[in-house]
């Protein structure tokens, strides 16, 4: 399906549409501007509709464990307050109030942004597009293969609420294997926004025309740090929240906890911790277990396969394993931050505080969220230390994947990457 000029077309018309796009885009660029206020208004109205339940049938098709949570999140992210705050925090100060009188620095949209969206969170492609619209850009969005149609519906509704947006939105469900079409879309763009790992970024670099700005949102890793693990029983409430976080995100997000680090040298502490944590994780996993037997069975199969792979590989220095129903704790004797097998299979490692810097620096390009479990009086010191290592988000353990209004993303304000500064001699 293709969304073009506000209407849905069959994918078979792709070539015709791609051929028509350049003059159409050029006309929009020369004749029209998209005021942020119009975009905010439309998005906020959509957010209100979602909150009021107008789109419940659509949300019910999500595979999420809890569509209600998505509804609350969408309503918060799409609220007028959040959007205005986002614009203000992210773009404020980008033009200097003290410009020399001879030159005026004007902030403009990049022009055309080609979004190659990821599919790990429902509705994320639409959010990427919203950021492009807020900065006044024309947006070409290539949907991920895993998109279940919700993005297209949300976007169509947005255009219905504000018809002026139709000149600024093009959505394609082209498979990435259609290199020719991808190349054509890239050629039309001033900026290419790509969500994905190294392979994705590399592929996009090969597509991008010279001078196009690459806006990369790469793979990141999250972890939890327990600063005082000597007495895990005292931490039960925080550990329950951590278990909830792990079970809820199934460790699929960049912000999800992959490895739990304990501030200790002793392996015995790791084992003791697992004994306390396993029942909590088991309970959380039972609460968030996928609705259908098919999804549950899929996760079980994945876990079973990972387990057998570990038996085959023996490459890992496994120091112990705690298997619970629907979850698993894998104790390792090294201290590297690494991706877990996911699906409620968490790595547990030791990381004495004096080694934090050296260990985390080895993964500096991948650091994202640290969930910190720590006594209040030590919290500031650890937070500062993680920030110095290159971590870009430091939260409590339960909020590792929570969305905070006004937050930056992977160390940057997204909107700033979608604009450019134009110098004009006065």
């Amino acid at each position, binding site marked *: 399906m293709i969304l073009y000029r506000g209407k849905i077309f069959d994918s078979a018309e792709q070539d015709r549409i791609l051929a028509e796009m350049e003059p159409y885009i050029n006309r929009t660029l020369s004749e029209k501007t998209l005021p942020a206020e119009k975009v905010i208004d439309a998005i906020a109205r959509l957010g209100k509709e979602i909150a009021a339940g107008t789109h419940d049938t659509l949300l019910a098709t999500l595979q999420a464990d809890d569509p209600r949570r998505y509804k609350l999140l969408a309503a918060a992210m799409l609220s007028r307050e959040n959007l205005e705050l986002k614009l203000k925090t992210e773009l404020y100060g980008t033009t200097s109030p003290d410009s020399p009188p001879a030159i005026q620095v004007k902030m403009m949209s990049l022009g055309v942004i080609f979004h190659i969206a990821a599919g790990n969170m429902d509705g994320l492609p639409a959010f990427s597009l919203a950021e492009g619209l807020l900065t006044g850009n024309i947006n070409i969005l290539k949907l991920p293969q895993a998109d279940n149609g919700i993005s297209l519906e949300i976007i169509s509704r947005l255009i219905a609420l504000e018809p002026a947006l139709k000149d600024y939105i093009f959505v394609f469900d082209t498979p990435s*294997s259609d290199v020719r079409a991808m190349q054509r879309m890239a050629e039309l763009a001033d900026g290419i926004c790509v969500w994905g*790992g190294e392979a994705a970024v590399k592929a996009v670099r090969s597509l991008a025309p010279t001078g196009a700005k690459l806006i990369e949102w790469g793979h990141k890793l999250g972890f939890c740090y327990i600063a005082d693990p000597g007495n895990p029983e005292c931490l039960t409430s925080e550990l329950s929240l951590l278990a909830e976080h792990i079970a809820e995100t199934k460790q699929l997000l960049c912000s999800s906890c992959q490895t739990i680090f304990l501030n200790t040298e002793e392996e015995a502490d790791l084992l003791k911790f697992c004994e306390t944590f396993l029942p909590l994780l088991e309970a959380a996993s039972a609460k968030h277990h996928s609705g*259908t037997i098919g999804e549950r069975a899929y996760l*079980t199969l994945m876990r079973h396969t990972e387990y057998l792979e570990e*038996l085959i590989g023996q490459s890992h220095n496994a120091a112990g394993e705690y298997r619970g129903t629907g979850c698993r704790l894998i104790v390792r004797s090294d201290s590297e931050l690494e991706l877990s097998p996911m699906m409620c299979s968490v790595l547990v490692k030791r990381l004495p505080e004096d080694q934090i810097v050296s260990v985390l620096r080895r993964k500096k390009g991948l650091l994202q969220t640290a969930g910190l479990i720590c006594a209040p009086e030590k919290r500031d010191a650890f937070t500062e230390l993680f920030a110095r290592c290159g971590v870009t988000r430091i939260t409590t353990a339960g909020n590792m994947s929570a969305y905070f209004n006004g937050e930056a993303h992977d160390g940057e304000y997204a909107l700033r990457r979608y604009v450019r500064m134009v110098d004009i001699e006065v």
Partner: protein
Amino acid sequence: MKYRHRLFYYKNPYDTQSDNAFLNAAKENFIYQYTHCKEYGRIADGLGITADTLQTIDDIPRLPCLPTLLFKRHRLKSAPTLIRATSSGTSGNFSEIGFDIGGLLCALRMSCKIAQKRRLISLIPCHYIVMGYKPHRGNRTAVTKTALCATFLAPAINRRYILKYKNGAYSPDFEGIISALKKLDNSVFPVRFMGFPAYTFFLMKMMDEQNIHIRLKKGSKIMLGGGWKQFYAEQADKASFYRLAEKVFGIEDKDIVEFFGAVEHPILYCDCPNHHFHVPVYSRVVIRDGTTLNPVPEGTVGLVNLITPMVSATPILSVMTDDLGVLHSGSQCGCGIPTPYLEIIGRVAPTEIKTCAAGAAEALKEASK
């Protein structure tokens, strides 16, 4: 592999007295895999399973059960292989299973027995319409090989294929098949269809819509195999499929035969006249709980674990498919075959679980090639 030989030379493929023969053959295969495939050995060691674990037929579920996903990610083998076949996954995501000569002879013996039982072997020549891939050098999928094999059950006058390889890709040619079929109306020789149910169903729907109804010679058959592929949404219920076959071709319900199999479990499951897949002596089915993987009783839905000692070159002794199914008691069927029958009710999680940014990364790997 003397026990395997004994099992595959059973007279009646649905004998209920085969437990001992099966246990011995499974044990023999386990020992072979354990000593010839180092990965299998490590898995068995890790799970604490030895040949002594297998004391009675009830210990069969304790065999290390390898998910098909593992075969997609690792090329496991235990011996040099005669031929290799792949599952039909795309973009590198397929299993490749090697077969040894002994295993292939067993397969041949098994196919003859089962086909005979369902009266598929005939000396009367027939026209074959293959609703699947035309064999091609680059196509190593098991489904193509089995479809070709099925065209040897009765002498072939000719073979027509719906999926033809042109300019580097397969595309379906419904029109070509329809015009060929029109010429076979009232032919003196029967026609046999073999291939994907979805294509066969679409063909019949197209013909019905165009008001083309032909009468094929008595004894014509529709043989179905290879699953419904990407057409789950269009999946016809079997009753309307049979009705349409009668209307469009004059082929009766009893002449429609469905096969079920997987490259990781190359046992020929053929439906009975009541269209149920009874478990033959060469195979055992364990249905496992979707969360704990413990075996569940008959009548309960779970993951389908298929066990056979047929192949020695690859450790596919016990594999877990990504199908969900139920095992029913044989007596519930009524066709007279006493062994339990397997009903496949779907696949695990219909869409791939989406991992962080993996969607884009995966898709773009393709683009960068």
